[in-house]
């Protein structure tokens, strides 16, 4: 999916040595090969090929209806593919019913059994495995400690808070020690604060267990924080796979750039490309745009320049003339506390979003609507998109 890029600096702000997908000798844990699933006339999953590696935290990210949940249900065995095959640890899963698959799923609704207590819920899968009673009791205690629900073993699900139910569902899915844990929108029902905490708990849990996690989410922040790699989906297809920083900083299309985070997109004609720098003509800046050339682009073609709001500098005094310089006035702003987002209207009438960190409490020259401002960005802050 990712084409070869010319490395200059590292992409993103964090460094990770865990990258099994870069090792061609390594056999993936799960392999989707040309998998297609139709519901009537609707194609939910369209010719998807995907490899997920042992101990990886992998996220399927996309808007609702993009096929991400169907892809997960195909792996769990609740749906049967119309074409293609799915293998787990080298074994073809075709025709294998859900109860025989060594994967467990945590459901979006949690699907806790209302007639069973917390400990009985967690023991459910172990009983089905035929584990001896004594071992089940030990394993349940271990799981309760793992998700910090020690005192609640005898409660019924309806006596628990949303966060506690979420942890019971997690413990129940982990208890049978599956080869892979599937999480369907695991945090969607939690409020924002709890969701953020739980994201980090999930990562800690995954690293402690060394278990392979596959998470399905429509929340880009959830995917970015938790996952080693993200697959961005659109209309049943995967449009980009990469580390969170790769997907954010080097999106391969306008769709990905726009879906993950905020982006300003400028359309323009490519006037020069020398392998290092791309020059584009635009009505918004007399000197044109300049950006690093990640992928080869051809002169004369139409391209889009994507610039994230936080990578744009806002000036109250005119900076010197040159490329990547835009003039306009503040049309609107949103104060978020940590950040302020400014909507700047250019002379051409189009608007550009620029974000500024509120690094200090007191500001000498506060900005108001209708103030004249100038925007600049560095060539390595912008990404050239050809589709």
């Amino acid at each position, binding site marked *: 999916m990712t084409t070869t890029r010319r490395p200059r600096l590292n992409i993103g702000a964090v460094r990770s040595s865990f990258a099994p997908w870069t090792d061609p000798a390594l056999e993936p844990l799960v392999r989707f090969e040309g998998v297609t699933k139709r519901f009537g006339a609707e194609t939910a999953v369209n010719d998807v090929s995907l490899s997920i590696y042992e101990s990886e935290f992998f996220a399927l990210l996309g808007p609702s209806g993009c096929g991400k949940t169907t892809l997960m249900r195909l792996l769990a065995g*609740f749906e049967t593919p119309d074409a293609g095959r799915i293998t787990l640890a080298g074994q073809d899963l075709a025709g294998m019913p859900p109860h025989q698959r060594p994967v467990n799923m945590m459901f979006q609704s949690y*699907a806790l*059994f209302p007639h069973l207590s917390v400990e009985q819920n967690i023991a459910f899968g172990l009983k*089905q495995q035929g584990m001896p009673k004594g071992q089940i009791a030990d394993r349940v205690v271990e799981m309760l400690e793992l998700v910090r629900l020690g005192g609640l073993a005898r409660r019924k699900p309806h006596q628990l808070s949303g966060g506690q139910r979420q942890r019971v569902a997690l413990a129940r899915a982990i208890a049978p020690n599956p080869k892979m844990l599937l999480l369907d929108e695991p945090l969607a029902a939690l409020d924002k604060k709890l969701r953020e905490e739980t994201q980090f708990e999930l990562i800690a849990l995954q690293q402690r267990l060394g278990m392979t996690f596959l998470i399905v989410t429509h929340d880009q922040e959830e995917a970015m924080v938790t996952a080693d790699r993200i697959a961005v989906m659109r209309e049943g297809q995967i449009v980009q796979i990469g580390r969170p920083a790769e997907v954010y900083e080097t999106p391969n299309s306008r769709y990905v750039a726009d879906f993950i985070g905020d982006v300003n997109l400028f359309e323009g004609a490519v006037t020069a490309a020398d392998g290092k720098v791309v020059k584009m003509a635009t009505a918004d800046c007399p000197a044109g745009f300049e950006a690093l050339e990640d992928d080869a682009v051809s002169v004369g073609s139409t391209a889009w320049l994507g610039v994230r709001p936080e990578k744009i500098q806002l000036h109250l005094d005119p900076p010197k003339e040159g490329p990547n310089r835009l003039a306009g006035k503040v049309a609107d702003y949103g104060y978020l506390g940590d950040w302020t987002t400014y909507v700047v209207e250019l002379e051409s009438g189009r608007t550009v979003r620029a974000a500024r960190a509120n690094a200090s409490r007191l500001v000498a020259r506060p900005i108001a609507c209708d103030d004249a401002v100038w925007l600049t960005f560095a060539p390595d802050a912008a990404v050239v998109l050809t589709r």
Partner: protein
Amino acid sequence: MKGPSTFNRVSVVAGLAFLYLPILLLVIYSFNASRLVTVWGGFSTKWYGALLRDQQLLDAIGVTLRVGLISATLATVLGVLAAVALVRSGRFKGRLLFSGMIFAPLVMPEVVLGLSLLLLFVAFGLPRGFWTVTVSHATVTLCYATVVIQARLVSFDKALEEAARDLGCTPVQAFFAVTLPNIAPAVAAAWMLAFTLSLDDLVIASFTSGPGATTLPMRIYSQVRLGVSPEINAVSTLLIGLVATGVIGVYLVQQRRARVADLGAA
């Protein structure tokens, strides 16, 4: 808050009186010491005593209870199967026809049902008796049981069954381990409803019963034709008590179900 208007009070009292005055009179006269039904001769429980010595009436009670127990159980088991087929199987061929045919007897005149069942038994040359009444009651109460169970299954989260299968259950195991315990209140309510319906049925039983299988409503009806005796009042009072207990039982079970469902959804 302002109370109900005088008009509303009067209409409620009149309506309740219309419904319950005859029943109240019956209950009161079952404690009448006099043999004459319409003359009050003081309080007595002697007709309840007489009831215990009336072997024919006791036999009829026995038949009614056995018919009720067996037919209600049969109707409930079949009702669970029908409800599962209707709710879980998605869009199978002939689903609409199947559901229509399940619910049609709800609105079919009882006389027509009774007659058609009678014709069926005659056509097959089956001797009419205990089993024909039982099977007929199961047939008629089946649709009521299905409606009750189906209503519960529709609101039952399918993810629970999937979770059970994900954790190692075959579909059948998942049904018994997860689905059945969760719809149990509705199943119990369906059973009680079927039992109550069987208990007070006269029309179907009259058509499909035979010698030696006279149910209590049939016995009461035939005795009344010979003249109302206080003993009939006594047995009717007992019947009212039994049916009321059944109906209240269904209500309480449904209440509990609704409460659990609320908590589950919260």
